[in-house]
């Protein structure tokens, strides 16, 4: 197990280097001068040049790239051009809000999606099945920003139950509900469809037939025998979904004024705050890869039949 984790973590290095290089190159080729944007329209050429020197933008590109990589190797993500403070601080300050939102959205999607999927599979070919499929299609197709606005209109403006966006002073729960619901819509749709198809397949299995023949109650068959076997494909989808949401949900974060990482990176792109873009993307890539690793490990726990190549429990070669 340890060998497997180490190997996966080592494989992370070239991935991060590749991502860092691509992001650096992209930010280098996009038009727009960060110093000019910072200085404002009335600034003299001299002021702009001074800012350029301060930011290190006057150096040749290969030198900037080398400094960038060197800092990255030391775990330093650089300094934000605009905020004049370490990028790590900018990112870590926003990551808890993103994590909170992503976990809540996945939790809601998991509960609603799996429940709906099981229901659809159980009543396959009848109206609950059609209803779930229609709703899941609606969830997948509804633009997040539109759904967000509708939720605000209904629950905040008309009913006055929940606040209109924001994070509150200390991230109170009531601020989380609407953005999490809005963000979970697409995932709920996917989860319900995956659960349904996976369940249908499992329910056709001989072991389910045998369980029914033994007189085991249907609820127990579904909850204990079918669900665990149907969960394997779901884990992949849930894991990648969570990792994707951790990458920031720009539309949701913008609509609900949620101080997450996606919005920070989006703003940094518009303002050409290159270190924040580079640092933010690298951080998210790291999170994504780690999340994928966690999914693989989760597989082992859910389904002991799955054996990863190279994993023997004694750390031997594959």
């Amino acid at each position: 197990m340890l060998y497997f984790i180490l190997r996966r973590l080592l494989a992370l290095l070239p991935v991060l280097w590749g991502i860092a290089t691509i992001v650096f190159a992209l930010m280098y080729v996009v038009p727009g001068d960060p110093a000019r944007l910072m200085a404002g329209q009335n600034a003299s050429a001299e002021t702009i040049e001074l800012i350029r020197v301060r930011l290190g933008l006057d150096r040749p590109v290969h030198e900037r790239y080398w400094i960038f990589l060197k800092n990255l190797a030391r775990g330093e993500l650089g300094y934000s051009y605009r905020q004049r403070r370490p990028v790590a601080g900018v990112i870590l300050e926003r990551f808890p809000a993103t994590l909170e939102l992503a976990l809540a959205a996945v939790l809601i999607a998991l509960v609603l999606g799996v429940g709906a999927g099981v229901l659809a599979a159980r009543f396959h070919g009848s109206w609950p099945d059609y209803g779930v499929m229609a709703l899941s299609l609606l969830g997948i197709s509804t633009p997040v920003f539109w759904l967000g606005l509708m939720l605000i209109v209904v629950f905040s403006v008309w009913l006055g139950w929940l606040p209109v966006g924001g994070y509150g002073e200390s991230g109170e729960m009531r601020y989380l509900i609407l953005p999490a619901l809005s963000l979970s819509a697409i995932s709920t749709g996917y989860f319900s469809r995956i659960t349904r198809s996976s369940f249908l397949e499992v329910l056709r299995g001989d072991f389910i037939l045998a369980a029914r023949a033994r007189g085991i109650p249907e609820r127990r068959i579904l909850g204990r025998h079918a669900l665990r076997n149907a969960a394997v494909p779901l884990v992949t989808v849930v894991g990648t979904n969570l990792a994707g949401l951790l990458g920031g949900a720009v539309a949701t974060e913008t609509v609900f004024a949620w101080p997450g990482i996606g919005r920070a990176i989006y703003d940094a792109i518009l303002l050409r705050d290159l270190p924040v873009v580079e640092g933010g993307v690298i951080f998210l890539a790291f999170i994504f890869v780690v999340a994928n690793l966690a999914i693989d490990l989760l597989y082992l726990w859910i389904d002991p039949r799955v054996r990863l190549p190279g994993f023997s429990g004694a750390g031997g070669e594959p």
Partner: protein
Amino acid sequence: MSLNLRRRLSLFALLCLAAGACSSRVSPETAQNLPDSLTVFRFRISGDPPSLDPIHSVDLVSQTVVNNIFEPLLRLDPLTGRPAGALADSWEIAQDGLVFRFFLRREARFHNGRLITSSDVRYSFERLLAPGLAGERPWILMPLAGARAFRAGQAEHVAGIETPSDSVVVLRLERPFAPFLVQLSMAGASICPREEIEKAGEAEFGQHPVGSGPFRFLRWQHDNRIVLERAPGCPGPGPGAVGRVEFLVVPNISVALEKYRAGELDLLDQLPPGQVALARKRMAGELHIWPGLSVRYLGFNLTRPPFQGNRGLRQAFNYAVNKEAITEVLGEGVDVVSRGAVPPGLPGCNPGLAGYPYDPEAARRRLDEAGYPEGRGLPEITLLYNNDAADRRVCEFVQACLAEIGVRVRLKSLEWAAFLAAVRAGEAELFRGSWVGDYPDAHNFLYTLFHSSNWGDAGNYTRFADPAVDSLLDRAAGLVDEVERERIYQQVEVTVSREAPWIFLFHPGQVALLKERWRGAVFPAEGIWAFPLSLVYAGN
């Protein structure tokens, strides 16, 4: 698995319980049920400020907050737009317009309790000018004698700043510069406490600012809110005075409007497109519309054909565009048709300027005289704009107007930074342009936008160059006689209008919603960012 499922169900149940607990109607705090000292005012800002250090406050969001924490020597009177006392309660100007003597307010203190002295003014001004720190707006103080030498590292201090006593500051200019007093009222020229900057460090000071303004900094939750409270010794306008200000970051304007309607905001700094008519009908008592300090235009690149050296063609374009329809329909009656560059009401604006009223016949005649009868022979023109919905609508309307006289226009949109880069590099032949005044003076419009020293990259994006205009603008900048200055600017407006380096479109008006319970509000021409919160109080 069943355990796992039970855990998940428990979490879901918790979530439901939490939702239930929150299902009572949210009742925002109001001024009525809070003691005066805790009267909270919620102000929407569209983004997270990059820094709250005055020398790095260039964007309007930063300035909205910084203006309340810090104080410059002077402020602009929100009603008249003229310089009024702030940290300095009086001042004298020498006859030659070169020497300014400021008398600091007695007992003026920083929020840390220390008395402010003239040496704080020197320190703050030299900090803005110091090359290593690269404050973004050193030009505010560049008219000072010795500023260039100091900036070049050739002098230890700025020769033009003298501190004869703790309460007197004397500023001497290199040469007379009429807008200097107005420039001194800008956020960048705010006075800062040296010890706090040294204690926090240059970078960190912008995160925990300490100033001497009407409100002191409490906390900043990035991308969420900034909280200020009324500073000790700044009593405000009486009972109900704003005791605490919360600047809430709400990027989406439609959401901000809903937040305002739900009572979670007291002031909304703008309205989503198409909402003004509705607000007029439903929130008339809360809607405030007032003239702004900006101009919107479409700029011709005067160094590229077909507009280079072809004034008739540029005038034809001006006559062809129905500006009234733009302001009435697209601008919802908030904007004012532009006849020149200087906004109406600002000294230097020429009220007698005819501009280019919508006249398709005159446009066709000019087009004919310019060598393109009915648009024949004129290549397709590319109109570059930034991808903003309101700008797109204006550009599409202009495209339709020009099509009526036979001119084909292709619209091209770019993201803001790429758009600016293209315009600055002179790549666009016709581009969307705008200028928001840094301070209310015609110099800030005409000099920046048409003087050849700003040619190209520095603001004069059309690359307009006229030695006669340059000479007039140089002369006006040094004049102490305000009447003569105004006359010169009006003369420049006539020349610029005749030369038509722009399609003159409109001066954007300003819109805000303010809850009716707040009294004493004044909406300054500079913009909502200069909204004087210290004057506002909650009425019954």
